[in-house]
């Protein structure tokens, strides 16, 4: 199994570069800049310094004793990406791409956001680097993530609502791509997940793989052995690729958890392996929820960050290779997992991460001496309104 894509950005048949000709020049420019930066010790040391001094790396690996004991089985460890500055793993990638944008002489950054975590992280690095910042966000997501919208504005970003299509993440990405085609000269598109045309899936993974590198070292220190299972939620799949990557050569089971939403029908969930098929969306060939006529399907998840029709191409390939397996947690299971983790460990996870926690809760009972490592990719502050609506009893105390 080759850990890298081919020079065209293909993971097996997946990935590649499917964009209109007008976008090719900036993508080729980005690829060249990224390949040069990746091999530049100066770039790497500046990024490491920022990750440590600004973002708060390394993040702790925490043994969730009470959760583990209450489930009566496996030992559950949590990789605490929720403790990073801005509250999620997204900042890892944003710092990397901001340094890259500066190298390329770009002064304006555009980004898409679903839950708002990537938008906040982008707005944050733009404030730090003095870039102009425009974040595209579906109007549906603006309505359900108001706190993050305000945070972005406070950080100096312009948040542009997208009214087209399903008014969620997919439409925000399309609008960001349209902006990029129009303003390629001075603008860098800071894509937030392992999606889109090559080099994005590889580049974003490389900026996120520090999660798994740290976790692998930390679990060896704590337990003297590798975990049996690594679990992460998968929207586009950047936190999952981030934690999976260091474990790819090991005999460790890798599990991605998609958004099971509120039903089995297309449109009621964002589980690409329940009804999806290979296709091309927004620059990449991968597994995508679509109808029989090749129109991209609407998706649903209580978690805006997982509410996307396509899974990243490297995940599609890991799935085909049976190197990783993919399952889903429903809206209700994710909400329950958030409540359980809050009460047993004092950690309120993001709704996205709650999907991964839900899978650990299913697997742990009776799993004896097994070790499960869960990536808690973000914290739950942004989701408090949704939690309030779903736990009405708590408001009455």
């Amino acid at each position, binding site marked *: 199994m080759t850990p890298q894509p081919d020079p*065209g950005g293909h993971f097996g048949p997946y990935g*590649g*570069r*499917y*964009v*209109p*000709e*007008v976008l*090719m*020049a*900036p993508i*080729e420019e980005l690829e060249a800049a990224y390949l040069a930066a990746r091999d530049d010790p100066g770039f790497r040391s500046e990024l490491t310094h920022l990750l440590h001094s600004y973002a708060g790396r390394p993040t702790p690996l925490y043994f969730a004793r009470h959760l583990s004991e209450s489930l009566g089985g496996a030992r559950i460890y949590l990789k605490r990406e929720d403790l990073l500055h801005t509250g999620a793993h997204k900042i890892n990638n944003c710092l990397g791409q901001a340094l890259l944008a500066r190298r390329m002489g770009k002064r304006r950054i555009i980004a898409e956001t679903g839950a708002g975590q990537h938008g906040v992280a982008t707005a944050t690095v733009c404030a730090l680097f003095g870039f102009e910042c425009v974040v595209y966000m579906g109007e549906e997501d603006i309505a359900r993530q108001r706190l993050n919208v305000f945070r972005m504005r406070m950080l100096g970003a312009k948040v542009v609502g997208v009214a*087209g*299509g399903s008014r969620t993440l*997919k*439409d925000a990405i*399309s609008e960001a*791509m*349209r902006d990029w*085609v*129009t*303003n*390629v*000269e001075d603008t860098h598109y800071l894509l937030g997940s392992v999606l889109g045309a090559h080099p994005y899936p590889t580049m974003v993974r490389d900026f996120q793989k520090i999660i798994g590198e740290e976790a692998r070292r930390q679990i060896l220190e704590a337990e003297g052995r590798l975990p049996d299972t690594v679990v992460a939620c998968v929207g586009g799949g950047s936190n999952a690729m981030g934690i999976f990557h260091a474990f790819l050569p090991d005999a460790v089971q890798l599990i991605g958890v998609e958004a099971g939403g509120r039903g089995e029908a297309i449109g009621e969930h964002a589980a690409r392996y329940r009804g999806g*098929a*290979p*296709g*091309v*969306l*927004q*620059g990449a*060939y991968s597994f*995508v929820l*679509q109808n*029989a*006529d*090749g*129109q*991209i399907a609407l998706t649903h998840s209580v978690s805006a960050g997982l509410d996307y029709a396509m899974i990243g191409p490297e995940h599609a390939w890991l799935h085909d290779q049976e190197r990783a397996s993919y399952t889903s947690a429903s809206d209700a299971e994710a909400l329950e997992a958030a409540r359980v983790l809050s009460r047993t460990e004092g950690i309120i996870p993001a709704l996205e991460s709650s999907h991964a926690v839900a899978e650990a809760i299913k697997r742990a009972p009776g799993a004896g001496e097994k070790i499960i490592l869960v990536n808690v990719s973000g914290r739950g502050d942004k989701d408090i309104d949704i939690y309030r609506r779903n736990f009405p009893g708590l408001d009455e105390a």
Partner: protein
Amino acid sequence: MTRIGRLFECLQLDGRKGLIAYITAGHPSLDRTPALVEAMVRGGADLIELGVPFSDPIADGPVIQRAGERALAAGTTLRGVLDAARTIRSRSEVPLLLFTYLNPVVRYGLDRLAADAAAAGIDGCLLIDASVEEAQDYVAAMQRHGLDTVFLAAPTSTRRRMELVARYSTGFIYLVSRRGVTGEREKLSGAVAPLIQAMRTLTGLPLAVGFGISRPEHVTELGRQVEAVVVGSALVRLIERYADDPALEQELEAFTRELKQGFGVTA
């Protein structure tokens, strides 16, 4: 040779320029598409780009986005567009170019599409998000069924990419006039002149320029430089405006004629 090749041969012999008209098939509904195409042909359109609506049209501006949403809401499918092409072909010899995003084609099956498109009387395809790097299977499938493959070149295209576009294109080459998505503009971009010059050194194929062309004076200016001019959003906007008006076909024909007169000939 397809009807597209023959068209450009005729244009050259006659010393004329071609008007290429884009229409989103299924907008406002698929059963009206053949009549709208015929109206544009009566107005002087020499070649029709039959646009397949797609849920996520990243290269399109708001006018064509709205048209696509409306076409999809009216139940338009790729199969339906091929049926409309067959109807058009039964009444007209106008060259037809299928203009589509890749995913509906991937889902339909590349080879099956090439066979069915050829059978429906379509002459060629332009897949807007199929880059030349990823296009080999597609070009082979289209060639097997005698269809032209038209690729886009942009002002930002590198020399290497222009060479690939020239190598893989048949029929004509579509030059994008400027940066950005589809949509009308007040003024033409100056970025296209160097692109035209560069492509002339790489290919003997006819060149067409599109994106942002919405007025007869744009047609006049570009008609001096290339073999054909593409108008899309301006026509789609007119269809949107008159969608519920019985005068739609008449208005469309008149506007097409106005554009065509930009070349200085009477249709």
